[in-house]
Every structure is written in structure tokens, then in C-alpha cells.
């Protein structure tokens, strides 16, 4: 099993006394005033991050592939001819027919009309919605930024309670019918899985401990944005739920996770209560689930929601851009922890939207609210206007 450096070894995290030299290698609590100062200063780390992010804006996908940890997958020649227009979807849905063999029988290719199988149609539409968000909002052409065909398999396994990205394709189970229904039912889950592919091709965050929880959170963030974008929901209108509709009627719960209120998505006799923490005070140390990657993701999830809530409007705009540029800009290490990610998003916000501007401020406050950085002081009250000087004897008063 891959172990990460720093605080993630063994899935445990220690809160260490702040030391700026440890910013990118260990789990530290950095006071926000220091983060602000670092962002303002010409610190070489931030300069490099800024330069790398600017470079990524050139959207040179070949450079990205060289930098990223993932390898492009071989294309079948037939599927890449004739030359495709950038941004166009290239989807293929296959049906595993209840087996666990991939890819299964091909049932719908790009441009073919919908059939009668809901899982196939939902997968096809969800892949399209994900491609649409990344292309129209972030200029990213598919998972690898270079038009990688989007492939998915539905009806995987028997009563299979999961969906995953296997490094090459999306795989969806039908659920057991008691707890879970089919996993294609939720656009946020489809967006979540495909975003694991985007992360694999960009920051390639190690799936263990805090970097793993960030990997999970980034998938939730863009999964939620896929759903909000396709439904044209503003931050205020959106549910901020991941996997809404995935539970059967027998479960006391609305979704897998809530980004707005982590820990409140379900409370059920069989499943127990949603165990996600919403601040660092509740950080879960466990050896299960790769160090609780699906639990502690609640903390950065809520930070993103708080940024969106502070800024209002559509979350895929300013908040989404800050997170996307942070993910793809080259400033993150594969072992980045929450503090490093917080610093990187603050740096991105300052660079894209102005140092000390509303977006930068919202990001700093969000990370402070969830306890990743120490409580941020309120803006210093303006000095009260000096009282008019008292009239002194011997000083002529201005004429009334």
C-alpha cells in the first residue's frame, strides 16, 4: 500500500505547532495572518505556484500530460477518426450484464439515441454533463484535458453497492435494492467518479490520509458542480448533497454526504449516523477507508460550500475556478495536506481575483471556520474619526 509522507503515515494526523518551514510537508495549523502575509510576499513557493498556474492557463495539454502522474490511454484508431472537434463528447456505455468483467457489451455510443435502460441513459447523460461543465466552464477537454474518450460500464456485478473510476473507465453497480438503488441515478456521483480521473491526470493526490481526503473532496466539489450546472442551480438553490436519491425508501437519509452540513446526510438504524466531521475538531483518525478519506473530506467540502455561500451566485464560477486552478495549476504536491491545500486555494484566489479581494477573503475565512487555519481576526475596526479639537482659550474659533 502506498504510504504518504508527513502526517498521513498510518492514517494518523497530529496537529503540530505551526512552523512555516513545514507548510508543505506536515500537518500544521498556520495562522491566517501568516498565510495572508505569505501570499502577499514574494515567497518563492508561491511565486512558483503562480507561475505554474499561469502556465497551465495556456492549456497545453501535452505539457500537462508530461507533468501529470497518469499516462494517456491508447486510443482505438477507429474512434479518433475523423478528427474530433475539441470539447465534443466521445462517450461509450457498455453493459456488464451482472458480471464483474470489464468492459462488457457495448450498448450506446456517442450520438446514438436513448434506449429503454435507465442506467445506460443516466450514465450517458451524466458523462455528457461532466464533459459540458469542464469544457464550458474551465476549458478542460475531457478527463485528461486532451479529449480522452469517456467510457462507462453499467450493471456491474450482482447487487453491487458501488461506483468507481478504475483508472480508465467509470463502473456503476445496480445497488442491493435494500440500502442502495442504482448508482447512475445521481449526477453528482457520476461527476464525482470522473473527477477522480481528472485528479489522476493533474495533482494526482495520494489516496491516503489528508491528501486522500482532499482527493475525495475535490471529487465531491466537482460532482456537486456537475449537478448544479446541469440543473442551473445557484449556490442558494442547490442541495449541496452528494448522491441524492441513491438510498432506497427504507433508509433514513437523503444522500451519501452533505457539503453544506457534513454529518447530517443520514441517520439510520442499519447505517448509523453520517460520520463526517465539519471541522478539524472532529477529524477522524482511523485505519479504515485509507485513513478515513470519505469521512474527513467533510472538512474541505464544507470549506468550499462556505466560499460559495459567501460569494453567492453560481458556485461553478468564482469558487469553481479557484478550486480548478488549484487542482490543475501545479502548486499541489501529491502528498499535500489540508493546510497546504488551504494555502494553495488562498494563493489562487488572490492571484485570480485580487489580493485581499472578496474571493480571497472568503477563502481565508472558510478555512478558518472549518479549523484548518486558526481563527481569522475580524477586519480591524476603522479608527474612529478623531473628535473635533476642543476649543482652547486663546485660539480663535472659526466664524460660525
Amino acid at each position, binding site marked *: *500500500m*502506498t504510504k504518504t509522507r508527513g502526517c498521513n503515515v498510518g492514517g494518523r494526523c497530529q496537529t503540530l505547532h505551526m512552523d512555516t518551514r513545514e507548510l508543505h510537508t506536515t500537518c500544521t495549523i498556520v495562522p491566517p495572518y501568516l498565510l495572508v502575509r505569505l501570499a502577499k510576499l514574494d515567497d518563492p513557493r508561491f511565486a512558483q505556484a503562480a507561475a505554474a498556474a499561469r502556465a497551465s492557463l495556456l492549456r497545453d495539454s501535452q505539457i500537462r500530460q508530461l507533468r501529470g502522474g497518469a499516462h494517456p490511454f491508447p486510443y482505438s484508431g477507429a474512434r479518433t477518426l475523423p478528427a474530433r472537434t475539441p470539447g465534443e463528447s466521445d462517450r461509450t456505455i457498455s453493459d456488464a450484464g451482472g458480471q464483474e468483467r470489464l468492459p462488457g457489451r457495448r450498448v450506446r455510443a456517442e450520438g446514438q439515441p436513448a434506449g429503454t435502460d435507465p442506467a445506460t441513459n443516466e450514465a450517458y447523460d451524466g458523462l455528457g454533463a461532466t464533459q459540458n461543465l469542464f469544457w464550458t466552464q474551465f476549458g478542460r477537454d475531457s478527463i485528461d484535458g486532451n479529449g480522452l474518450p469517456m467510457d462507462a460500464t453499467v450493471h456491474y456485478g450482482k447487487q453491487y*453497492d*458501488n*461506483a*468507481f*473510476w*478504475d*483508472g480508465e473507465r467509470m463502473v456503476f453497480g445496480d445497488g*442491493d435494492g435494500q440500502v*442502495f438503488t442504482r*448508482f447512475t441515478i445521481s449526477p453528482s*456521483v457520476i461527476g*464525482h*467518479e470522473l473527477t*477522480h480521473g481528472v485528479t489522476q491526470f493533474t495533482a494526482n493526490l*495520494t*489516496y*491516503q490520509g489528508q491528501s*486522500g481526503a482532499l*482527493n*475525495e473532496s475535490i*471529487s465531491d466539489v466537482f460532482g456537486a458542480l456537475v449537478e448544479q450546472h446541469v440543473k442551473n442551480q445557484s449556490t442558494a438553490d442547490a442541495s449541496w448533497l452528494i*448522491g441524492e436519491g*441513491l438510498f432506497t425508501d427504507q433508509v433514513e437519509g437523503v444522500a*451519501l*454526504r452533505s457539503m453544506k452540513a457534513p454529518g447530517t446526510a443520514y441517520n439510520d438504524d442499519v*447505517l448509523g449516523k453520517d460520520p463526517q466531521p465539519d471541522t478539524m475538531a472532529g477529524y477522524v483518525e482511523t*485505519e*479504515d*477507508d*485509507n485513513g478515513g*478519506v*470519505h*469521512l474527513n473530506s467533510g472538512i474541505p467540502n464544507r470549506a468550499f460550500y462556505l466560499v460559495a455561500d459567501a460569494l453567492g451566485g453560481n458556485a461553478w464560477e468564482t469558487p469553481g475556478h479557484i478550486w480548478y486552478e488549484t487542482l490543475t495549476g501545479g502548486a499541489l504536491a501529491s502528498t499535500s495536506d489540508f493546510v497546504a491545500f488551504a494555502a494553495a486555494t488562498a494563493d489562487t484566489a488572490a492571484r485570480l481575483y485580487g489580493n485581499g479581494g472578496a474571493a480571497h477573503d472568503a477563502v481565508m475565512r472558510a478555512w478558518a471556520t472549518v479549523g484548518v487555519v486558526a481563527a481569522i481576526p475580524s477586519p480591524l475596526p476603522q479608527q474612529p474619526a478623531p473628535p473635533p479639537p476642543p476649543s482652547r482659550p486663546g485660539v480663535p474659533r472659526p466664524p460660525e
Partner: protein
Amino acid sequence: MKVIVSRSGGTAGIRLTWEVRVEEQPDPNTWAEFLNSLPWDDVTDSEATPDRFAYRIRCAPHEVVLAEPQVNGPWRDLVNRVRAANGM
């Protein structure tokens, strides 16, 4: 003697645990033989991959953690038997 299978991870991140007390089964000897025959010492670490299940299997003095793709052969058989004994 008891065997505990705990499944964590998956995109849901929900941990489910199934337990079998061998003495309470209709065929305890078969269970004991089967549990003793499992390749407890042959399990190797594997790369963590997003949203796959991880299985922690405990049967004192043994404890192993298997990534989902490793749950095949006798391990698959064990997980299926333990779930079936729990009515799932």
C-alpha cells in the same frame, strides 16, 4: 471462535460489518476447517485506488486487510459465506 468482516470505503464511504460465531453455526466444523485453510500469511499490501472497497477480516489471531480486487478465490468465498450467514 468468530470471524468478522468489515467493509469500508466505496464511494459511499459507509462501513458495514458482518460477524459469524462459528459455534452457533449449524456446521461449525466445516467453518473451522475453512477458516484455518485460508491463506492468512500470503496477503500482500496493494495500491489504494479511489472509491474501491477495503475489507478488514479478523479471526483471532489473524487479521488481514484486502483491497477489493484481492477479494477473490477463498477470500471471496469467505466474504460471501459471512454475508450469507448474516442474511445479506
